[in-house]
């Protein structure tokens, strides 16, 4: 199995931890890219998720999975990124997969209608 692991955020020093910035870890599996997000996804941090997630979604093949187990909060800026990724994946007939979605975030995504075009698991 081919696996590469990248830590994409440069915010792992103590100060930025205090500010609760977002960290994204990227894992390339054979037929899937898995991204793990740690921290809040809001208007200050959504760009950090957007770049790697869109790059994965706009790639030629493979499923894209985003693990939200450690995402404490997701605002509409985060939802926008998810829609962009879902649109990119839809072009090649794939659906974005969200896994380990915290219940409160799942609730919001569901009420917003996202379960109709994104696979979401708690």
């Amino acid at each position, binding site marked *: 199995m081919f696996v590469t692991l990248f830590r994409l955020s440069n915010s792992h020093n103590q100060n930025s931890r*205090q500010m*609760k910035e977002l960290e994204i870890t990227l894992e390339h599996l054979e037929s899937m890219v898995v991204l793990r997000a740690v921290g*809040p996804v*809001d*208007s*200050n941090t959504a760009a950090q998720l957007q770049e790697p997630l869109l790059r994965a979604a706009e790639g030629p093949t493979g499923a894209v999975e985003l693990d939200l187990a450690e995402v404490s*909060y*997701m*605002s*509409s*800026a985060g*939802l*926008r990124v998810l*829609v962009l990724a*879902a*649109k990119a994946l*839809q072009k090649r007939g794939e659906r974005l997969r969200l896994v380990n979605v915290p*219940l*409160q975030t*799942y*609730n*919001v*995504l*569901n*009420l*917003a*209608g*996202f379960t*109709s*075009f994104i696979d979401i698991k708690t």
Partner: protein
Amino acid sequence: MQIEVNVWQKVLGATAVEIFPIIPKTNCLFSNCYIFSAPDALLVVDPGARPEQTKQINQILTDALALSQRPILVFLTHCHQDHSQEAGNLELPPGTEIKRFAHQVGVDAMKQGDPNLTVAYLYPGNPGICSVEFEGVLFASTPASERLVLELANGNRIELYNEPITMPDGTTLQHQWLPLGDGNRLEIYHTPGHSPCSISLRIGSLLLLGDLPFAAMPGVCGLDGWNHADLLQTLRKVDWLLEVPDITVCCPGHGYCVPAPTMREKLQIMKAEASNLTDVPLLDAERVSTLKIYVDELLEETAALFTIFSGRLYTVSYYLSLLEEENAASRVLATLDIDRIDAILSDFRRIAEAFNNNAVPEWTVVLKGVKVATLVQQVLSERPVQQLLDLSLVDRAQRRLADFLSVARGLQFLQTEQPGAVNELIAELLKRKKEDTATKSTDLMEAVDDDQSFLQALARRLAAHSPLRDIEIEFAPAAQETHANIGAERLDDILTNLMEGMAGIGVKHISIATRVASGYVEVGLSSRERMDPAAFGKRRLDLYNRTLGWLGGSLQCSHRAGSAEFVIRLPALRSV
């Protein structure tokens, strides 16, 4: 005249007088400072509470003194900590004479180290209350004809004249003035309300109002020394002052200077709002703490509702994009200024976190919450938003925001509707929800002949998609009479929010049952499926409990066999 920040500029209506405004980003920790250069004196109005600002003031004054040696006259528009704290900390070249002026009540409060009237109690860590001597006691309780004379070391004198003004209605506007050279005068008016020591100052075409423009704001009215009757009188008097066309610009204690007509309009609106503010309780430390918890709950709820609103718009845009209707998709997203509101809510969340790290005072969080609530309220009132989003959801959000702003102003929570029989209210609510869904389908069918109308109807339908549409709801009404202290809207707010929350976590069957016991009407809300209350967020549930608490009721959550039941308890009333 437009006032620019951090630059000397001429004051219109005065001879050889210049102003240098220092206007930091608006907050409650430190005020604006206005420096004036007049022929016979340099004036500093409200040094503020920020040492960096004091350094800047020192530099500006030192440079001005190098051009012409003059005494420095420091004025406080009132003694609140954010305006006064640094008044004793100016460091100027040796030989510079400084005289300080404030209203007698403020001078006494600072001399006594009074944490209440200076509102130092709102700032944690016991900030030092200004203890420097104020030689110029304004509006002192001495005979009106007497004039205050301050002797300067060089033999010159500063004379403060007392000239009360009789208003057209016969009341008196307390007024003093002092000469600034070349025929210029500094006019001083006593304008209490925000604080008993509040004054307004006029030089040429400028009127400096201190914090009067904020005196009726939620989270500000009710501060120690705030007085409703004085405020209304002052607003009337200042309105009269602003009738004179010579005053062209008004400068507040926080934020930018505005044209006088704009300020006059703002103060007139404020007067109408302030007229209801009778019996406002004291905004003491305990009330600030309560409001801080309330604002946390409210913003959690607002953030959740806003994320659902914007998420629905993103969903609509997604489907319109699939239909290759990119323009329509963009138009939908433009309905709501999503990025701006999101940035504001994220910003608030960070301020709340900063409070948890002891970095900002509680009062700052409350005032920020008021600002955010007011802004979201405005956005949700805009017509395109109302046309596209689920009106019931918008209305629920609006009522939550209005409740908060009202309570933050110190007003009692108002039950504006007639209380009713809970059984009937619930039956009516469930019937209405069914009808809403049916109407939306009809809209779509009627618009099918016109492309634009069809797209709009489709967008509306997608955006307004009710999460309860596919949920089976059973209602078991109690056999007894269920009149209780709640109206249709309030019950709808809480019941629908809870049911939608249940739908959001995948519940498909909801059972509603009413019971009457021990003087209460209870509404139980449960499901056959497993349900974790954590999915609702503790603060949101606390908010519903708080609202019900105002009605004498409560929201409780009991766990049973891996699931949960929400119980809304309401005081039973006799039917009319």
